[in-house]
């Protein structure tokens, strides 16, 4: 499991680079890039810090990944988690950060 950074949308602000608890993201030619994809913990800190939703999270094939990627679109208190399925379908789960877990 790891992340990919969408080059076209990345504005090179460096927030994900600052935030990664494993120092795993670097800046190359003005764009963020994951240095060792195998060392990602999957904590989603970089997704949450990115202002433009350029970070995509995916499961490695060894974890059952089959091509879907997940990103976050932020809107005030709401995180819209967008899951892009391999065939183009997009599923959205919206979580209000002001609501506590029910479980």
């Amino acid at each position, binding site marked *: 499991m790891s992340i990919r950074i969408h080059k076209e949308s990345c504005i090179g602000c460096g927030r994900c680079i600052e935030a990664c608890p494993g120092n795993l993201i670097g800046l190359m030619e003005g764009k963020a890039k994951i240095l060792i994809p*195998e*060392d990602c913990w999957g904590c989603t800190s970089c997704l949450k810090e990115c202002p433009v939703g350029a970070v995509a999270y995916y499961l490695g094939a060894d974890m059952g990944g089959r091509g*879907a990627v*997940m990103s976050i679109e932020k809107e005030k208190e709401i*995180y819209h988690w967008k*899951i892009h399925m391999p065939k183009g379908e997009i599923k959205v789960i919206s979580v209000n950060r002001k609501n506590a*877990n029910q479980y």
Partner: protein
Amino acid sequence: MGDVKLVTKTIRTDVLIIGGGTAGCYAAIRLGEASVGRILLVEKANIRRSGCLAAGVNALNAYISKGHVPRDYVEYARTDGEGIVREDLLLTMSERLNHVTEDLEKRGLVILKDEKGEYVTRGWRNVKINGENIKPLLAEGVEAQKKVEVLNHVNITDLKTKEVDGEKRVIGAVGFSVREPYVYEIQAEAVLMATGGAAGLYRPNNPGFSRHKMWYSPFNTGAGFAMGFEAGAEMTTFENRFVALRCKDTIAPTGTIAQGVGAKQVNARGEVYETTYGITTPQRIYGTVEENRKGNGPCYLDTKGITKTAEEDLLKAYLNMAPAQTLKWIESGKGPSDEGVEIEGTEPYVVGGHTASGFWVDTNRMTTIPGLFAAGDVAGGSPQKYVTGALAEGEIAAESIVRYLREKGRKKVAADFFSQEKAYARHFAAEDSGYTWQDLEEAMQKVMDEYAGGIATDYRYNESRLALAKEKIRGLQELIREAPAGDMFDLLHIYEVRERLTVCRILIEHLLARKETRWHIFGENADHPKKSEEFEIYVNSRLEKGKIQILRRPLVKGESYEHQDP
């Protein structure tokens, strides 16, 4: 190998905090409020999202609800820890659990409340929250403290000690920037160790591409244990490893499913087996391992048929703490209402916040080295700490440091030079030996898995296997000294493997010393498969003249403990 010119920077401070996670950040806030001079917090990543709290947490696992008292928590932890716990540490921590919870709420943490405004609890010790932003809230608290300076992206590797006033004291620490060629020599009057526990010692559940998809933070490499041990500090109860029961592949928590929707543990035949083995964490894992061994696996949490509303809630709850699980449910096209969730036990970790491994501290959280304190997952004797317990310990340590610095007649540490540069530079000068840090890490995990009771042997070990583990880990320790680095990021990884190898050495000695099986799964001693009264003691260790010495200490009862000679 690498063309890196190191530059040394020297800093003087009154208090140095190593590790800006849960305990470290909270101690920094409390020290900042206390006006004790300069406080420097050094963190290998960035305190905003570093450590265990990076992904967010699901609940506050340690809280004392109405009708209960701190003593109840002590008894719960004592029973769960089979008696090998420190009453003084558990009690002083438990007394603060509720007050740190209220403080977290004031800082902006969302806590679920009922109509009367009381916290909604799960059982009597759990508070329901939205823990997604818990770490940024703590980081903001630190940033608001004017006297606290934060040094992010600096990895500390060694403590420095010196005879002062007739006793060996801590006088600072050294480390390096993980990005720029800077070496940091930090001189301090007091040091708080808050580097968390150790993950990545054993071959993980996903050994390939997703090797870091593990339960505990893979970036907590046991640095604090290693530096403390090398400096001569006493350690306790490493053999009380922690193993978690997790969702297969994603290593997401299972408690949310088991307690949230009441799902039972079933084997491949659909038989509920949790009633046979019991429902404490080790029993749940033991049952799963046994069922698999008998050929009844795979094992599941039986969620099939839960309502669609419950499914929606689960999908959201996991996004707040283990998003891989939600993605897996959606990507596979089968949610928890369609099929059960497969479960497995993780590889073992050394984590003082869950079990009792770590620094041997007095009631004030001072280690056996004067001036060196420890809090959170790095401190031993006090299991079941979790987030609020780590905060409580950070606060206790902060108060003790204030008292220590104000002690009458205590001589200040004179300025000193540590000349650390050479030790780091040798890795840049090293010839390519053919062994990278990645090779050595993999080799270490294989040794621990096969010979020191990993997943491969269903957590079982015996003396013959441990003797082999010891020899092989020693060999790897020699190789890591010569490992070549191309840049500062390589140097970080080399030191991480070095730390893990030291933790493995200590762990093996502890596993050898406890000739009994006290905590099923956490340690299955095949030579001594039963619990023994003779081992109603702490197994402690320390480095003396380059050799690991094992100390047997009697159980501490009562409300306070001061350090005593072995």
